Every structure is written in structure tokens, then in C-alpha cells.
């Protein structure tokens, strides 16, 4: 078992928090971080005891084209299947991927068991629940953004999962963009095809895994001793998708003006996480430059790879 994530320099504080929270419960599992940043930042993070991989270490033949074609966010996303493929190729029996904006709040042992025994594990955005007005809206938006959340992927080293990762990497090489009208939403829409491609796909039905703003208003997160509970199961990991620690009162930039205090999520969870991020150096890293920015802003429009990207 091995864990990994992919970040650019501005998410270094988030990854410090994630790795620390993961190690608290699973000190024996190695956590690899793909860090697409300048050399001195990589060295500084590696010196903290985090296993850092640079994108050029992952045997991606098309990396220069990828870096030119995509923006920072697109590149980070496109590297996700690449790290999975790389780790599986090195013989690890199972790999979990966690987005950098995740906080682990309880042992993941039941989840890791499921990951080890199935080719592919996915967490759906929605669990069966009664209908409500906001839920209806979320269901409609999920048709455009993807049924499964790409913030968590669990993969066991089987032939069909390796084939799936290779397929996913190939798709994201050229079609990793957000274009709702045409059915693209970065890597996430592609995952909708996973259950039909991978025979042994397991859909994680533990409500405590990968909780995020899309679960509202069907869940309430409450404090329970040192941990948290989602409805009546323990919260294993929370995905702070779209959360900004500099505006800690807002749930997410994807949830409009919704305030944490009105959301049904425990306010302590958000306050603690914002505090953790700030003390891990959020303000210091937030404006870290992306080293592969094109020489001038309109560069991408005119290059050959950009025209492929738009198609």
C-alpha cells in the first residue's frame, strides 16, 4: 500500500497538513508527493521528510508538450494518472491517490482493505438520500462534472486497472479541460466510464469517506471527541474542495455564498483546517509562481499543441 498526491508549489502547505494528518493514522504507509515546482522548493520540501517526486522523474515521454499545452491546474490534473501508472509499474500492490485539499480525520483502515481487494475504488458524489431542492440542483450539475469525485482514487495492481490508468492518462494528455457544453470536466467526467471499463470497480459506500460541499444538505458533520461524525458514521477524510483559508467563513467557492456556520458542517473542522494551513505557511506559498508559464499570455492560442487542445 502506498499513498500519493500531485501538487504545484502553492499547495505545499496543504500537502504538509495532508501528509501530517495521514501519518497520524498510518505511519507505516509511504506518502509520495509529485511536486511540479522549481528545484529549490522541491529540495526544501524533501528536507522535511516528505517523499518528493519531480514530474520529469515519472517517465512521461510527452511531458514537455504537456507543460506547454496546459495551465498549472490542468498539468497537475494530467499528472494524476501518470503517478498512478508510475507507482503501479514499480510493483506496488495498491495505491491510493488523495487530493491535496483533503484532511484525514480518522483511520482509513476499512477503506484501505477495500482498495487492496478491488481493481479500482471510487467515491461517488452522492449516496442515496431523500430528495431536496439543493440536491436536485447538485444532481443536475453532476451530469456535467462527473458522478465520481476525482479527489480519491484507490487502485490495486491488476492488469485491468493498469489498462484503465493508461487509458485515462492517454485521454488526459489531450482532453483535460473544462468545457461543460461538450462534456469535458478535466479528469472527472472520464471517470464516469470507469465502472463499464473496469470489471472489478468498487464504489465506496462509506459516507465518511470523501465528504465535501457536494454532500450538503444531506449530511451533518459534528464533533465527536477528538474526531468527527458524518450523520452517524465516523468522518474518515474531508475534501475541502474550493475552500480558502483566508476566507474561513465560506464553505467553498463552488457553493456560492454559503457560510460554514449555516452549512451543517462542524465549524471547528473548518476553523482547525484554516489554522493548520496558515501555520503551514499558506500565505507564504499562495503566490508561488508556476515555472512553466508561457513567455507571454496569448502564447498558447497560437501554438500547435494549443489548437489540438481546443479541438
Amino acid at each position: 500500500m502506498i499513498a500519493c498526491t500531485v501538487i504545484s508549489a502553492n499547495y505545499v502547505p496543504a500537502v504538509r497538513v495532508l501528509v501530517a494528518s495521514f501519518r497520524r493514522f498510518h505511519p507505516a504507509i509511504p506518502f509520495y508527493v509529485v511536486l511540479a515546482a522549481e528545484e529549490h522548493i522541491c529540495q526544501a520540501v524533501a528536507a522535511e521528510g516528505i517523499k518528493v517526486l519531480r514530474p520529469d522523474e515519472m517517465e512521461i515521454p510527452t511531458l514537455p508538450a504537456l507543460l506547454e499545452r496546459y495551465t498549472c491546474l490542468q498539468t497537475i490534473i494530467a499528472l494524476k494518472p501518470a503517478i498512478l501508472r508510475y507507482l503501479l509499474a514499480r510493483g506496488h500492490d495498491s495505491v491510493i491517490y488523495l487530493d491535496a485539499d483533503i484532511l484525514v480525520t480518522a483511520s482509513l483502515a476499512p477503506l484501505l482493505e477495500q482498495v487492496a481487494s478491488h481493481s479500482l475504488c471510487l467515491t461517488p458524489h452522492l449516496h442515496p438520500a431523500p430528495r431536496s431542492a439543493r440536491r436536485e440542483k447538485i444532481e443536475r450539475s453532476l451530469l456535467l462534472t462527473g458522478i465520481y469525485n476525482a479527489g480519491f482514487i484507490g487502485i490495486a495492481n491488476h492488469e485491468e486497472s493498469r489498462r484503465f490508468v493508461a487509458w485515462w492518462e492517454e485521454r488526459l494528455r489531450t482532453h483535460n479541460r473544462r468545457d461543460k457544453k461538450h462534456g469535458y470536466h478535466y479528469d472527472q467526467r472520464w471517470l464516469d466510464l470507469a465502472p463499464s471499463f473496469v470489471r472489478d470497480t468498487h464504489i465506496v459506500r462509506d459516507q465518511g469517506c470523501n465528504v465535501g460541499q457536494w454532500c450538503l444538505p444531506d449530511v451533518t458533520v459534528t464533533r465527536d471527541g477528538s474526531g468527527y461524525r458524518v450523520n452517524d458514521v465516523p468522518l474518515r477524510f474531508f475534501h475541502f474542495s474550493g475552500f480558502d483559508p483566508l476566507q474561513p467563513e465560506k464553505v467553498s467557492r463552488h457553493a456560492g455564498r454559503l457560510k460554514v456556520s449555516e452549512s451543517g458542517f462542524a465549524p471547528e473542522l473548518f476553523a482547525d483546517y484554516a489554522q493548520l494551513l496558515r501555520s503551514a505557511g499558506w500565505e507564504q506559498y499562495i503566490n508561488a509562481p508556476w515555472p512553466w508559464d508561457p513567455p507571454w499570455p496569448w502564447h498558447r492560442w497560437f501554438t500547435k499543441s494549443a489548437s489540438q487542445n481546443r479541438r
Partner: protein
Amino acid sequence: MRVLRAGVYNGGVVGFADCEEAHWFLEWWQAKVFRRCVRQVKRGYHFEQRWLDFAPSLVARHHLLRDPGVNVGHWNLLERHIRVANNRVTALGVPCRVFRFSGYQPERPEMVTKYNRHLTVADTGEAAAVFARYHALLMSAGYTEARKLPYAYETYRSGATISERARRAYQRQGDAVSNDDNPFERTSFDRFRRWFKMGGHPKAR
């Protein structure tokens, strides 16, 4: 990619066992389809089919049929290697159990489907025999006569045809229309026409 726009699972073959989960899912699906059974790919709608993408995540005991002989249609016809021998049809070597003639038009028997204007029956190899047989069966079942029959819900009670435009305007109303209203009744029609003339504002009703 086209599949991501139209739906991962084909709505042509769906099976249910009589259990609580299935009832829950059918009710959910019905609510979706009664409200938005439209084809607006830009917004992520494709009749009933896109909603089926949710099925594996909402139904714990779902099963995806991976039998290559079930639901052979224009979207997978060429990769299923249809063979016809001794009056038996096989797909990838297993018996072909369900064949979908989605978009097949007997008026144009040389085309596989109206959804793909490049795919002709001649391209499909031995499957051409299946299409020929289906064409003959349709004809002997009275296709030509049935073709002339009108759609039962095509006119108002008064006999006036419901235009495509009026239908779309009614759809756009969404939840604003009351389900107790019978839009086919003459009186409602009048009210509807009044509303329609006033530019479709819900308050005009």
C-alpha cells in the same frame, strides 16, 4: 467522448429485481424523466439515458451486463464481429441475444441508423443478414400501415394540432404548471394560448 455526452449505459436494456432499492431508484428516475426528458447535451441532458450514469453510485446491488451478445447496436456493431451461420447469430463468438435496431429506418434499408450517416448496412459484414431479416419481419408485421397512424397525444381535445413550439414552451414552464390542469382541455388551452401570446411569463396565466 460521444458516449460521455449521451450516457455511459444504454437505456435500451434495463432489468430490475423486485426489491426496495430498485423501487427507490425507479421512483428517482421517474421524477427526473417526468421533469426533464429532453436532449440538451450542452446542459448534460440526454432523455432518460444520462440519468442512468448515476445508477451504479445510487444502487448498491447493481450489475453491469458484460455479455457481448446483449444489446448489440450501431454504437458497438463493428467491434462485436457479428457472424451468421445456420440461422444463428453470434457476437464475439457468443450467442447474440438482444439486437438493438436503434435509429433503423425501414424506408432507408441501406443505412444502419439515422444517428450515424456514415455507417451503411453493407459495412457491417454478416450483420447485413440480420437487418434484412428484421426489415422483412417489420414489413410483415404491418410497418407501412402503422406508419400512417397518428400519435395519440398530438392534438388538443378540440382537434387542433399541438405545435412543437407550444410543446417546448410548456416544457420550459417546468414546475410552474400545475399537474391538476389538463392542458388538452379546451379551457386550459385557451388559458395556455393567452399565456403563450403574452410572452410566456408564468404570471400571465
